[in-house]
């Protein structure tokens, strides 16, 4: 085992070498070396992102060293970008770091395409106006917003983060994120209701009348289910049990066939009846996906994901090849069985899955050729993975910050939820626009409560939401926090954001859509698609 595999062992068990490779090609920009910003970078540098860059025009203050672990006593008065770069850089010798003690606006003035080099841009300690501007740039791949025609430009993930006292929030924006490896809990697809010929033949190969109790106790439950299901179909016009009573009847039939309480294989069969009586179909989310316009209108710039999804559609529509079903995953769970019969069953599913992959591959190849793309430009490995997880594919389309700021996606507000804090964050931005500071920052903090609550009222009115959705006590609490940075909250939000960036960068697992809110006073959180 090489040194890198040893160091990364505990994470490779989550996202594998392909995820690690993707992570190592990520280049992350942090705007402002705040406590939460540095916590995010810490959790990304440790698992080995490719590169990070810190942009921050400020110098290190006393409050910085009281809330940020990557700025120390010796850093007081020095460039914040440089010191954070140094102390964070120590964490992993395989990660490259850069810094600039400049304001992001002046950088963009000199180099309008500056953002295009990054895969993710994290913005902290910035005004709403700046956030909107940066988010709009990332949305179109980092090119100047006046020059929106970036052929082949990839999208940049934009992440906005803020902590205020015991409250913290994070927002993700990217036009579209597609995921194949969503890591569902269970990918087994056993086709008990519609067995393919090889599977039926396998089930029929067992002697249910055998005198040998060891042999009888080791008939794999899949064979038991198929056998009893077959008998059921013969007396029910070829239909599988559909009502609750019918399913219970099938269970009772199986139970009656049991010879001793030690026949755990029969127990396994009985406990799988409910799942196995669900007809094998295409999940509605996947049906919607194959009907997506991106699938219909492929071009040479289309992501592999959409070419593969189109191939999936064409495969499924060709009933002679697919029976109208998704490719088989080829995975089976462990079950009580003799080694030989288990290995045989495993290879029956695997072989069928391979045949399905081959059929899908043929469609992929013909699509590639019609698009003028090189044969094999989507690898066999990629097609295999796609087929294996085809029932769990996922596409997330985020709302842009522009849309959100115009009108958040909400009709009513539960005053007991975490959402009122979102309203208060937005109201604090309005307060900042009026006063050039955030509520509660000064000594006479309680004087700001009325003003901030008036901002809340104005916002709610403009969204057409009842005025009592945010209690004045909560407005008071935000003023109490006084825009203060508390390390625990920075660290918690930093953990959540870094985890989401890992999911987005590796294209594995499912990231949140789109705003995470954490209330540390009550220890509760929620995600809203605002």
């Amino acid at each position: 085992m090489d040194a890198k595999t040893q160091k990364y062992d505990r994470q490779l068990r989550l996202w594998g070498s392909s995820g690690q490779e993707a992570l190592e090609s990520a280049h992350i920009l942090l705007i402002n070396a705040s406590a939460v910003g540095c916590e995010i970078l810490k959790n990304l540098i440790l698992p080995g992102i490719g590169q990070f860059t810190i942009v921050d025009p400020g110098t290190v203050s006393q409050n910085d060293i009281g809330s940020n672990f990557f700025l120390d006593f010796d850093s007081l008065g020095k460039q914040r970008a440089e010191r954070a770069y140094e102390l964070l850089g120590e964490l992993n010798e395989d990660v490259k770091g850069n810094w600039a003690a400049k304001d992001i606006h002046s950088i963009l003035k000199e180099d309008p395409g500056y953002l295009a080099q990054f895969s993710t841009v994290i913005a902290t300690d910035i005004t709403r106006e700046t956030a909107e501007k940066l988010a709009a740039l990332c949305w179109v791949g980092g090119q100047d917003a006046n020059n929106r025609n970036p052929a082949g430009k990839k999208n940049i993930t934009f992440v906005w983060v803020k902590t205020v006292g015991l409250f913290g929030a994070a927002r993700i924006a990217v036009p579209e994120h597609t995921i194949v490896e969503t890591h569902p809990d269970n990918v087994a697809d056993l086709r008990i209701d519609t067995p393919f010929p090889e599977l039926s033949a396998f089930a029929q190969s067992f002697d249910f009348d055998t005198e040998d109790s060891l042999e009888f106790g080791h008939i794999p439950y899949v064979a038991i289910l198929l056998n009893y299901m077959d008998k059921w179909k013969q007396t029910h016009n070829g239909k599988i049990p559909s009502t609750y009573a019918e399913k219970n009847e099938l269970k009772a039939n199986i139970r009656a066939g049991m010879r001793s309480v030690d026949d755990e294989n029969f127990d396994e069969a009985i406990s799988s009846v409910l799942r196995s009586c669900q007809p094998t179909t295409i999940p509605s989310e996947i049906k919607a996906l194959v009907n997506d316009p991106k699938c219909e209108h492929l071009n040479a710039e289309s992501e592999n994901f959409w070419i593969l999804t189109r191939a999936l559609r064409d495969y499924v529509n060709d009933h002679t090849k697919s029976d109208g079903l998704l490719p088989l995953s080829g995975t089976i769970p462990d079950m009580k069985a003799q080694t030989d019969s288990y290995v045989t069953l495993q290879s029956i599913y695997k072989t069928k899955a391979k045949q399905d992959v081959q059929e899908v591959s043929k469609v992929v190849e013909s699509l590639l050729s019609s698009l003028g793309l090189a044969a094999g430009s989507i690898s066999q490995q990629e097609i295999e993975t796609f087929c294996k997880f085809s029932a769990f594919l996922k596409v997330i389309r985020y709302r842009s910050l522009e849309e959100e700021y115009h009108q958040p996606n909400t009709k009513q507000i539960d005053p007991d939820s975490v959402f009122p804090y979102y309203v208060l964050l937005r109201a604090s931005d309005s307060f900042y626009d009026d006063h050039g500071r955030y509520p509660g920052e000064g000594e006479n903090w309680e004087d700001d409560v009325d003003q901030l609550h008036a901002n809340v009222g104005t916002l709610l009115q403009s969204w057409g939401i009842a005025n009592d959705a945010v209690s004045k006590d909560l407005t008071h609490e935000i003023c109490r926090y006084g825009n203060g940075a508390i390390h625990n909250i920075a660290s918690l939000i930093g953990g959540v954001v870094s985890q989401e960036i890992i999911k987005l960068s590796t294209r594995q697992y499912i990231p949140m859509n789109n705003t995470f809110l954490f209330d540390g006073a009550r220890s509760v959180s929620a995600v809203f698609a605002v």
Partner: protein
Amino acid sequence: MVDTQTITDHERWAGVYKLLDRTSRIHPEFEPQEEIKEFIKTCKILVIGAGGLGCEILKNLALSGFGDIHVIDMDTIDVSNLNRQFLFRRADVGKPKAVTAAAFVNKRVQGVTVTPHYCKIQDKDEDFYQEFALIICGLDSIEARRWINATLVGMRDEDNPDTLKPLIDGGTEGFKGQARVILPGITSCYECSMDMLSKPTGFPLCTIANTPRLPEHCIEWASVLEWSNKHGDRKMDTDDPKDIQWLYETALARAKQYNIQGVTYSLTQGVVKNIIPAIAATNAIVAASCCNEALKIATTCAKNLDNYMMYSGNDSVYTYTFEHQRKDDCPVCSNSSTKLDFRGDKTLEEFMDYLKEKPDIQLKRPGFAVGGKPLYLQAPKQLEEALRPNLVKPLKELFSSGDEVTITDSTLPFSLQAVVTLT
């Protein structure tokens, strides 16, 4: 360079001090007092574990303004820790975690004192634990958690409020984790929630020996059965690459023989060391949540968690906060005995295996007694040998239905009183 004198608590801890200086309308019970700031600077707080969670917890406490922190850990640093345990560098591999972590935080955060204890938690007595105002646990061992939980519950004297030691416990696995607050004797304790743990992984011996199907079965065969056949009394060292390599090759050979695919070096290591995937991000979330509760408990600036927060990040970001209820027959924090049903014609050994696997009991090396008379004990050796014949006897020959059986385990600082109904 700025002189130490120019550092003021007021500026440095501005975020925390706003919370402590200002009243709250959502938590009107809170009264700001200067003593609270003094208290967090001087109270002693204990961190158990200096691993993935422990590193985070030490950092968080130091930056919350806690001034007197102790950390206890018996482990040394391994190269596979470096992807998340950010207080350690490659050059630190092999050094004690507690000592290295404490030195790092002392150097980085001006004015804090972190005192390391490089030993097992079981090496310390009640007098040691009595000194702390609060204890935070960042462990991956169930056994150590049960030990500290039972110790703290046992230490509590209802007439003496100083004996109540709040225990904050964090745990992670991959993208999932939890943080909880235990007020020993008041809220549900660690033992109350044993049944929330997933069943200990382990495969039936007959599967491993006779009908292997998964690569894991082949690895278990190599480590459980074949190791002692080939190596006699020599104990396996799962940290020695040579031993892992032997297990891997042995498991691979068996897998070939049975046409089983999927035995790899990494899987072998994972199975024999019971490796749990771990990343910095999840540790950060859970540790921060624990320390947020610590600050709230120590200062009363907001209500503390009552009493459990689950976290999951596989699919979106999800937390669930709820009050875990005390278990009426908890062997640690209640006075009533556990009720068990078991077949009277089954042997004591079968009863023992059942208790080893039962999620809310999970014993390692149990001993049994009825009415003060031992039925089976793991030690001393002579007694074990004398009582061993009882293992194959059916329960109905050893005691009557409804008898109270005392179950002990050398790994636990308490005994379990179980009323066993023989069926």
